[in-house]
């Protein structure tokens, strides 16, 4: 609990530092860097703040927190999440290869097609690696 709280506070502090740096250095840095700093900073601060508030709610209502923990760790819920992630990953992989074909049809720059194919191949390689790893582990 304490570790989580420290992590979320660190998120807020780092996020605010990024956003402040973007504002202070606005004229000295490029627009894209300023935008990236501001975007990532405000995002980190928002995530940290939200998680900190959730943690506070959990501390106030331990029964509700326990219920939430059970829901998260429930074996059926875990199995459902894993199946959904696996299927959506597969669907996304095929969508990427379709996008590569479509990009060829629209005379898109070559790098678009190459990136799509590399993404498809990387996912396939990662999948084979993970299958081999789990075969050894189980």
């Amino acid at each position: 609990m304490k570790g989580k709280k420290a992590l979320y506070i660190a998120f807020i502090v780092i996020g605010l530092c990024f956003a402040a740096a973007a504002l202070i250095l606005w004229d000295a840095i490029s627009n894209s860097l300023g935008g990236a700093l501001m975007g990532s900073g405000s995002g980190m601060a928002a995530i940290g703040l939200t998680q900190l508030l959730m943690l506070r709610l959990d501390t106030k209502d331990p029964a509700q927190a326990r219920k939430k923990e059970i829901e998260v760790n429930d074996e059926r819920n875990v199995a459902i999440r894993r199946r959904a992630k696996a299927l959506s990953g597969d669907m996304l992989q095929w969508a990427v290869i379709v996008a590569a074909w479509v990009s060829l049809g629209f005379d898109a720059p070559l790098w678009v097609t190459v990136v799509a194919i590399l993404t498809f191949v990387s996912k396939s390689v990662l999948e084979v690696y993970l299958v081999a790893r789990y075969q050894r582990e189980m």
Partner: protein
Amino acid sequence: MKNRLEALRKARGLRQEELAEALEVSRQTIGSLENGRYNPSILLAFKLSRYFGVPIEEIFIYEEEPS
């Protein structure tokens, strides 16, 4: 896989929520188990067996599919 979970639970006058709480699973998991939509892990099967004080075979009925 068929099971006698609902009958065992009702025989003890328990609600799904109460059984779920005792086994640290969600109420939906108990519902799905009772409907036969979900087969439990071996760990949950043992938990159920210990909770009701009956062997696993008396809760879950495995029938081989005809070949």
